[in-house]
């Protein structure tokens, strides 16, 4: 046992040095040399300030902006403490949350979409995402919001639609994953469309 213990101590030191320091240092070197923007968190800088990351949702409540999916983090959209909602499929709390979110959407989008009913609200708009910072919404949810954006910003609907199309992230290589619309990038594009 003593021999095994001695060997263990040496192995702990060697593995910690090689796997715990050399390996991450090597990977960081490669990352910073080849893809430093992504390696530092895909941060977006506007006029010298960091306004967010294209990989993290942020809170949008103003009617001037496209809204994100619901988030279960505290505070909402917290990339420093991600979490699931953990609401089970039969939990009454989930039913309540879905109804509450759907009502809020009907109230917000209704005036711009006459005849809007709950059946037209896509599911991703009312249930929390896995990370709480899902940067994307479904194309259906973006489409649902386009009339409001056009009206509030006094933009032609076609302009808003074309911006949605530009910021739709398709399946990777046309095949892997599912399509979605990156909300932060889309909202930034809206702002620069008008701000010049």
């Amino acid at each position, binding site marked *: 046992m003593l021999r095994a213990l001695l060997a263990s101590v040496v192995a702990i030191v060697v593995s910690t040095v090689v796997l*715990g*320091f050399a390996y991450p240092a090597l990977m960081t070197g490669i990352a910073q040399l080849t893809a430093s923007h992504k390696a*530092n968190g895909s941060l977006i800088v506007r006029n010298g300030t960091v306004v967010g990351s294209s990989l993290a949702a942020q809170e949008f409540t103003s009617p001037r902006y496209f809204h994100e999916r619901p988030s279960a983090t505290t505070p909402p959209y917290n990339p420093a403490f991600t979490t699931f909602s*953990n609401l089970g*499929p*039969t939990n009454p709390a989930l039913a309540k949350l879905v109804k509450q979110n759907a009502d809020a959407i009907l109230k917000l989008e209704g005036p711009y979409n006459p005849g809007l009913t709950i059946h037209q609200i896509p599911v991703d708009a009312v249930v929390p995402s896995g990370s709480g910072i899902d940067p994307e919404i479904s194309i259906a*949810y973006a*489409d649902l919001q386009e009339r409001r954006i056009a009206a509030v910003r006094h933009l032609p609907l076609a302009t808003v639609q074309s911006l949605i199309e530009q910021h739709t992230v398709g399946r990777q290589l046309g095949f892997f994953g599912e399509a979605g619309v990156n909300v932060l990038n889309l909202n930034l594009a809206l702002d620069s469309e008008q701000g010049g």
Partner: protein
Amino acid sequence: MGQGIGQLLVYAAVLIALSYPLGIWMAHVYTRERGDVVERAFLRLLGKDASGDQNWKQYGGSVVVFTIAFSVFLYGLLRLQGHLFLNPDHLPAVPWDVALNTTASFVTNTNWQYYAGEATMSYLSQIAGLAVQQFVSAGVGLAVVAAVIRGIARRGGGVGLGNFWRDLYRSIVYILLPLSIVLAVILISQGVPQTFHGHATATTLQGAHQTIARGPVAGMIAVKQLGTNGGGWYDSNSAVPFENPTGLSNFFELLAILLIPFAQLVMFGRMVLARRHAWVLYAVCFTIFALGVAIAFPAEQHGSQVLRNSGVNITHSASQVGGNMTDKETRFGIANTALWATATTDVSNGSVDGGHDALTPAGGAVPLVNMFLGEVEPGGVGSGLYGLFFYVLIAVFVAGLMVGRTPEWLGKKIEAREMKFAAVGALAVPTMVLVMTAAAIAAPAGLASVFNPGAHGFTETLYAYTSQANNNGSAFAGYAATNFSTTLGTVGLYFGRFFPLLAGLAIGGSLAAKRVVPASAGTFRTDGATFGILLLGVIALTAGLMILPALTLGPIVEGLMH
């Protein structure tokens, strides 16, 4: 669903195509006589224990001592992180009970997480504590599998199974590390951070303050996936865009879950010179895996009762995925999340790309049953292929009883001693899970951890102890950390690791000493479809039957309430 099915088929094809050459390489790694220069220097540095063949007791002894010694080191690191370097966000010490559970969780290749990584662990703890274990605990698992296989393959001349330290070195240097570097580079190209800068702060478009956690993430995520570890940098694991930014990164992370486990079967066939038998095992594992996906994917696409009743649109269309999107990410949708939930529990990985607590009753039952069977489809890198061997031995034994001959496996007689170890290996952990679940349901301190009401809350509890005792690490994550749940879990983690591991080594040691019996006309063949079907039946009838009553109380009741 058509496009989703297409993604599943491509995944299966790539998995099979890559696991084959990797398995051949792994067989070469563990059978090569002479080590490289660094290996010889490393083994000399380790001293006497690292020279010469070990019998199964010596081999197991080295594993146990090494694991316990590393536990002490890791626990100390987590408790002292507040005073150490590489802590740019000034995180304090990890509380004692969480540190204890986390230590047990990572040295046993489980990676159950009662903490939120990005808000609890310093960079030092993540990379030099936890990620090191992700290499080492997986390396230990691979080493033990290689040793057991050597025992099975041995044709006279001693009872040695190889040397643990040499196998550990080769597992890491020739398999885990190179694959991790490749995967990390792919992940970096997709947007996973790899930086030593601390939190970034942003001012959002609406003028709010947002803190963005980052760090040297990509390197850890690579080995987390490849070594069937599953413990992520962030709390929501691979659902978080920083851990898994794109459909492509998701594909490669998914591939990494099952790659080495399936390659192990190819390696096994080559090392014991029974390739057809190994392919039968491969087919059995693949069948269970495919069955799981075939249940989970449609169940999730069909959606949950609450969502169907709510009136919102859950129908799949060109502009949305639909289905049960609760706790799922837009870029992965239903097919990829269901595939992940199945794959991660077919082996002892336990990473997730969506929340399991929010899965539908049928969708959540798939990972639960997968784990309860002992994750033998085909077994994790860490928990090892030996889990499957227990079932193979039981199947061979049952077949022997039916035809009235002494059972044989790969030319070796299977007798009472091996059967005892196989029974312990196959049944100890499921029994332990049921006892711990009962205790956690009976005790008020256990009920304090439950988050969801009703039958789902029972499933949360059952899932928690099934996951920890089988060294998986995925969770119905509403189940909360208390002193009671962390301590009970810690017991499950260690026993769940060592019972099957030592039983597997004992079988290897016992078989190593046996003479080979030449095959005759009366030998029950283990390399055809008949044996494959028998094996499936044995898996279903042992652990499968044990979980059925508990399944009735949880997912089945919940499903019937729909």
